[in-house]
């Protein structure tokens, strides 16, 4: 009679391998030497917009700033003041500032960190009769003392679910999808 363990072991190993392949990557980078508790004031720079929607970057930036501020653990410099500092310091491309520019901005606005972002997708996606809203974005946080990246993460939320396909519904509204995406990023930041 065959030993049952002999069959179970390879099956278990195969299952583990399969699960490991299916698991989503963490999609974040954290500088282990950074003390995030010391970050009190943050500057949120204008986001880069790679989507078809013209105002997507500004919308997502506003929601992110507000939700970060509403977490009550970090103060976000008002966006008007950020714009003024960008003009004052003469930053050519605010969505992708260089190391020196980050340091200069930190000194001007008395901020501990600068956040930049890219909105990769924002809007409606269709598949057959089903439609849904999707947001895909990534963020980076720079320490203003050194100008180096201390945290980076990305997320994609929304899209067409099985329920949308079956019922032909249009999914969650855009603002809810955006909030879910920002929520996910904040969870990755504060984890």
């Amino acid at each position, binding site marked *: 009679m065959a030993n049952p363990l002999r069959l179970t072991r390879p099956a278990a190993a195969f299952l583990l391998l399969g699960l490991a392949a299916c698991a989503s990557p963490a999609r974040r980078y954290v500088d282990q030497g950074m003390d995030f508790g010391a970050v009190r004031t943050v500057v949120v720079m*204008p986001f880069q917009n790679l989507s078809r929607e013209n*105002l997507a970057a*500004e*919308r997502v930036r*506003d*929601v992110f*700033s*507000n*939700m970060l*501020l*509403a977490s*009550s653990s970090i*103060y*976000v410099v*008002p*966006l*008007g*003041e*950020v*714009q*003024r500092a960008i*003009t004052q310091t003469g930053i050519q491309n605010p969505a992708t500032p260089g190391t020196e520019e980050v340091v200069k901005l930190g000194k001007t606005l008395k901020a501990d960190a600068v956040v930049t972002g890219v909105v990769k997708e924002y809007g409606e996606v269709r598949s057959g009769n089903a439609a849904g809203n999707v947001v895909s974005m990534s963020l980076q946080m720079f320490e203003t003392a050194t100008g180096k990246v201390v945290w980076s993460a990305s997320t994609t939320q929304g899209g067409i679910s099985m329920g949308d396909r079956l019922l032909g519904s249009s999914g969650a*509204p855009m*603002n809810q999808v955006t*909030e879910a995406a920002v929520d996910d990023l904040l969870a990755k930041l504060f984890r």
Partner: protein
Amino acid sequence: MISWPSCSARGRALGALAAASVLWGCAGARPAPGRERMRLALFPVENVSGVSVNTREVGTRLELELRRRGLDVVSGDIVEDFLARHRIRYTAGVDGETARAAREELGVGGVLVSSVDLYRSRGTPQFGLSARLVSAEDSPRILWMDGTERAGDDSLGLFGLGEVGSVIELEDAALSRLAGSLSRFLQGTGPAVTRCTADGRFEPRVFYRAPLSRPGPRVSVAVLPFVNLTGHPAAGEVIALAFVRELAATDWIDVRDPGAVRSALLKHRIILEGGVSHEAARVSLGAMEVDVVISGRVHAFDGSPKVEFTATALDTWTNRAVWQSSSFNRGDDGVFFFDAGRIGTAGELACRMVREVGEEMVRHLAQGRSSPSRLPAPRSSPDVKGR
């Protein structure tokens, strides 16, 4: 058997009670001192609707409505000459210099500024008008403010009998409503500020709040123009005015007139590029002596209707944000059956959204005030935006 004397005594008592209640009712209808005969200057009507409107005609009809109610109005060539003499082109607000000059040269006690917020004559007609009375003092104050916005299919009723087919009808109703509201205010029987309808569907989804650094019994506020990122040319002004209206309804908040705010910003060459800045807050504290400045960004304002904006309030003493919120809503949010409760115009939707934000903001500011005995009095103005 009926006892006649006792019946008559009861009748006399009832009669006396009725007379007392009538007299009590009349006591509330007494004109506010000095306001019932206030002379008003009617400034030309501004157009913020984004389309071409014959504002001169709207102004003339507004003047007629006011005169019909016995108000003493200075308008037409006299006001045009006054504006030309002082080189005043902006008539959507009143600053200190203009108010003083109007008092001295036109002999008026207040200036009535009004604007057409919405105008659509083709398809389903739509019309919106707002107005406010600003005192002709060196530091102008908002004395009265009201507004109305309607679409022809707002109240269709049974078999669509309530549908309004022409914009003129909507215009007449709006002019009559505003003139009546102003007249009642001047007679002391109406509220100073009529707020929009409270609607829990349009509460801000995310907001941040922090305590004021120098809480006092009164809080002075300047609402700066909102940065407009939409295709509507005056969405920022519409949202800013809605905030002015909402906050002016609270008796312990002093809201500076948008004309005075604009004048201070121009004088100090402040440009609100991406939103409210520390510099704008400093200037507001220095020039207008306000504790809080409010501004924000408007992302969507269209006729579908859909409105999205962010509001930020800065404490001018510390340059720190004391409030920030994001709001996004559609006219059919929370509507499930037969369009019941659907909002037809972007202005009305924005007004209700701003009311929800303002209410939360006022509640927060009230908590931080220094004297608990002077908590906000119950609002005298009605909660429903009459139509």
